[in-house]
């Protein structure tokens, strides 16, 4: 069964084509890595799936249901959670409260929600920070809190937007292990956008490459890394910036 299906998605910003006829599939239980140079349209694609941006053309299907045009909270209700490329913390809330917001999505009862939040905090290792305010935390901690609050919503599909950017190699390894646990123990499907190749290649079952708004390659990590077009795109992207 497919967790996510994109059919012919196109999106223009003025004269700029952000995405052109993107077709993509993520199966339940998969970890899919989405890579590509800056400006390739990865974040736009995330925004379209999560309802922040409306596509000009094409359909988005989640677990078989057409969700094109739904609002983000409706997407969330259908089992999608997401972290942001630039963290969006709730500075004025404690970590506990932050994660509790997520937990309330599926737990109407306060006690259950608290339990759910505590499980998510323990899993991501931020439980000891629970009474700290978000504004007191550093970026790696904030990323973990963002992951924790996403998990507290009990997602079926987790979308991670550059979750390891700016982390130390040791932290990247820890995150790799964490994401694997999330997939294996909670059965969550994962779609991630990433620049850190070590992370992507280590964790993904399948990798999709976007360049200039188009899917240019797709396959297992090893297939993709040997694919010439990918290397070109990266080289081109790098020399251009």
């Amino acid at each position, binding site marked *: 069964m497919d967790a996510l299906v994109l059919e012919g998605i196109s999106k223009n910003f003025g004269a700029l084509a952000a995405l052109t006829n993107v077709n993509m599939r993520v199966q339940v239980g998969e970890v899919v890595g989405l890579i590509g140079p800056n400006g390739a349209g990865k974040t736009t694609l995330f925004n379209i799936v999560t309802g922040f941006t409306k596509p000009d053309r094409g359909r988005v299907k989640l677990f078989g249901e057409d969700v094109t045009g739904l609002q*983000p*909270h409706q997407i*969330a209700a259908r089992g999608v*959670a997401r972290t942001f490329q630039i963290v969006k*913390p*709730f500075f004025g809330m404690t970590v506990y*409260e932050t994660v509790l*917001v997520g937990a309330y999505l599926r737990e109407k009862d*306060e006690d259950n929600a608290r339990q759910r939040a505590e499980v998510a905090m323990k899993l991501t290792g931020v439980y000891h920070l629970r009474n700290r305010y978000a504004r007191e935390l550093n970026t790696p901690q904030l990323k973990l809190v963002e992951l924790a609050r996403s998990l507290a*919503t009990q997602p079926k599909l987790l979308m991670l937007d550059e979750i390891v950017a700016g982390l130390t190699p040791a932290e990247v390894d820890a995150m790799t292990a964490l994401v694997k646990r999330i997939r294996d123990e909670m059965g969550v499907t994962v779609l991630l956008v990433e620049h850190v190749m070590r992370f992507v290649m280590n964790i993904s079952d399948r990798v999709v490459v976007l360049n200039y708004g188009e899917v240019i390659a797709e396959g297992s990590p090893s297939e993709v890394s040997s694919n010439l077009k990918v290397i070109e795109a990266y080289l081109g992207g790098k020399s251009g910036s």
Partner: protein
Amino acid sequence: MKTYSALGAAIALAAVPFLVGLNEYYLFLVTLILLYTTIVVAWQLIGGYGGQLDLGAGAYHGLGAVVTGFLMVNYGVSGWVGLLVSGAAAAGVAFLIGYPSFRLGLKEVWYALSSLALVLILQKIFLLWTDVAGPLERYIPYAEFDPVFMRAGTKIFYYYITAALLASTFLIVSRIRRSKTGLYLISIRENEEAAEMLGVDVRRYKLQALMIYSFIAAVTGGIYASMVGFYHPTLFDSWISIQTATLAIVGGLGHLLGPPIVSIILLTVQEYLRITLGAVIIGLHQVIFGIILVVIIMFKPDGLGPLIDSLARRFPASVRR
């Protein structure tokens, strides 16, 4: 502990009329102060928690005054019924203006401006709508003491209505603050997109906050109209909007105790200055009031809420020791 401080606050509220010697004039002033403080406390829902800098308080307050007054004058309907009807009317208007605004993502300065515009629009609509209001003051029939009609010659009547309203507003707001709704609203204030991605229906919760707040603001307007004995479109007063927002900001956005305490203190200072300086140089008291506000906002952008919270936390501890 909590019960004791609630009891203390209740006794203090109940005792005020005796502290001012049951003097009708001072009772009038303290009732006004509590009335405006009630709006400040209710404003926390939309402004402090929801993060929408709403300047529509004058519109809802005015609507409360006009609708309650209209029902009392034209149909002899009890003010109590009037308060409920006007509250519902205000919540209805809040829905009509809030739904498209939130749906279309009106935020920050644009939301603030559109809510302020609402005050002036409603004022002029009721100025032209002579069946209901119009340019002439409408006088509510005088009654020496008629609690059923909600009209009395003595201010103590209005004082206790207002005190009860303030107390219940405070309880409602603090309960919401501790509930899921409160948590959702604060998450909206802190980051709308992140909140939405966690399944928070941003529009719905903003709209809920706006409607509860506008209901309470309308009730204050109804009480005001009955107390002063007339209603008029000038009661759609943009100054109430601005005063409410500034007092709430100075009190600390989203703090529970700061806004009411700051509001009571500053409004009392303002009235005191008015009585002592008002006759010497007209308007001087308002300049001093303005300077106090600006200084606090410039040097304590978070308001006095954190300070008051930490004091409140320290105080019982020291007693225990």
